[in-house]
């Protein structure tokens, strides 16, 4: 559906996007993830034809952005960050104006606006000026704007930023509802959001792609780095390192804290695979008393932190 080839963008000397390649398939909800200033917005702006790439191409279906900018714009609906709408206009007038620019015929306009008002929950604010609306409602007007011509692809830049938790849930529901039929590209720096709404996640750091895949595959990709937490009574670091360290797959063992009063000592053990069975066997043979034993599963947060810190 969308192909991005060797895309770069320079602002003067600063390289915001550096030779990025990826594809977006039809019907996918793709999340662009990255810390602030990673280049997410720049990528989306180039995709929507607002900014010109410094080099590289973007093609949507059979159109390329250099030659068929107008055709691509017709296929896309875009919601920029913080929905910059005209302040003085009434919501209805604004949607009517968007419908005209999008080329809707006059008999299709009113039903379409009604449809979107229902979908985005705008019925109560239809006749209020935009500058009187709350952030959440503005965001919804922006969503309605982006969906006006029923585009095949929706591009949403941080659709939930600045919203309260209830509004976030509502907007996510709307996105998931639309995502059943459309291709959606959204950017976010909130990981739980990417996990909750996206089929595929592309992590970007300093203008480069550092990971690409579904949230689950990303989690599995860094497996082999498991952290096992063990709490033992009557044990000291030296003997634990001797006994458990002999198992194949243990990388390091560290003492976290020791409680002198009840004799409990906490250890963390970094392993390259799941070896909890062998560890338990070894512990059973000793006189230690096991009070706590669990393996930490890698969260998207950890992966994200690792990937974006390394580079």
């Amino acid at each position, binding site marked *: 559906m969308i192909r991005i080839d060797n895309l770069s963008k320079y602002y003067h000397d600063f390289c915001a996007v550096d030779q990025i390649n990826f594809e977006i398939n039809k019907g996918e909800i793709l999340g662009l993830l990255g810390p602030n200033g990673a280049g997410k917005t720049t990528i989306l702006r180039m995709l929507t*034809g607002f900014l010109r790439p410094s080099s590289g191409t973007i093609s949507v279906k059979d159109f390329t952005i250099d030659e068929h900018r107008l055709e691509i714009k*017709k296929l896309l609906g875009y919601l*920029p960050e913080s929905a*910059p709408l005209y302040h003085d206009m009434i919501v209805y007038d604004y949607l009517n104006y968007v419908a*005209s620019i999008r080329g809707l015929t006059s008999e299709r306009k009113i039903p379409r606006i009604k449809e979107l008002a229902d979908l985005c929950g705008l019925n109560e604010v239809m006749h209020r000026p935009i500058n009187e609306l709350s952030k959440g409602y503005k965001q919804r007007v922006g969503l309605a704007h982006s969906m006006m011509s029923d585009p095949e692809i929706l591009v949403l830049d941080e659709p939930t930023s600045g919203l309260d938790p209830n509004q976030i849930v509502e907007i996510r529901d709307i996105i998931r509802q639309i995502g059943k039929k459309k291709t959606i590209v959204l950017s976010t720096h909130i990981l739980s959001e990417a996990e909750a709404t996206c089929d595929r996640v592309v992590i970007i750091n300093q203008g480069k792609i550092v990971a690409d895949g579904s949230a689950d595959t990303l989690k599995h990709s860094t497996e082999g780095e498991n952290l096992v937490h063990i709490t033992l009574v009557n044990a000291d670091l030296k003997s634990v390192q001797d006994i458990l360290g002999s198992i194949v797959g243990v990388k390091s063992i560290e003492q976290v804290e020791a409680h002198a009063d009840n004799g409990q000592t906490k250890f963390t053990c970094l392993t390259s695979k799941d070896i909890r069975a062998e560890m338990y066997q070894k512990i059973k043979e000793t006189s230690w008393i096991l009070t706590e034993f669990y393996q930490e599963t890698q969260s998207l947060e950890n992966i994200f932190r690792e990937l974006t810190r390394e580079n």
Partner: protein
Amino acid sequence: MQQAITIFKKEFKTYFITPIAYIVISIFLIVTGWFFFSTFFIFNQATLRNFFGLLPITFSFVVPAITMRLFSEEFNIGSYELLLTMPVTSREVIVGKFLASVAFIAAVLLPTLTYPVTISFLGNLDWGPVWGGYIGAILLGAAFCAIGIFASSLTRNQIISFITGMAICFALTLVDKTLFFLPHNMLGILSYLGADYHFQNISKGIIDSRDVVYFLSVTFIALYSAHLVVEEKY
């Protein structure tokens, strides 16, 4: 073209939703009305010459006030991003906004039609110069609107946009008044550049193609420059 018309309608409507339109129209009518009628009975002639004589100066600050928000505001609140990611080209945006501001100039001039009507009761008014004057006023307004749009496309700050636009318009109005100080061989070129000179020709009731060409070329050059600025920006 359909898009340009849509933008034209929206921008024209916005003038009347916000207080700008009413403020600008009132100020324009008070200033021109005062300067015109305060000396009208002293001259004791049934002409609008003084009204049109003053117009280039008043337009130099009224027109940039009308056009200053057209691009600057969009850049400032970021709505330009929404506008340009819809299927429109920057050319259509500029044409739409330009037409809206010219239409608004026409709306500003509309109430002044009461002047010639009133005067025609007082004396024997020659309508030729009046119509010439109004045609000239629209041409002058269009040229200044184009300059104002160019100034607005340069910056996201409306005040800077207003001052830049006003400076260019004033320069064009006053350039033929400074000829006095300049070397003789430059006089021809500089007097041709003066907006006031061409406007006064038309407001005599003589519509000369040279004057019309002058206004149309100023309009075109300014709009094209705005187009280049906007294209370069993003």
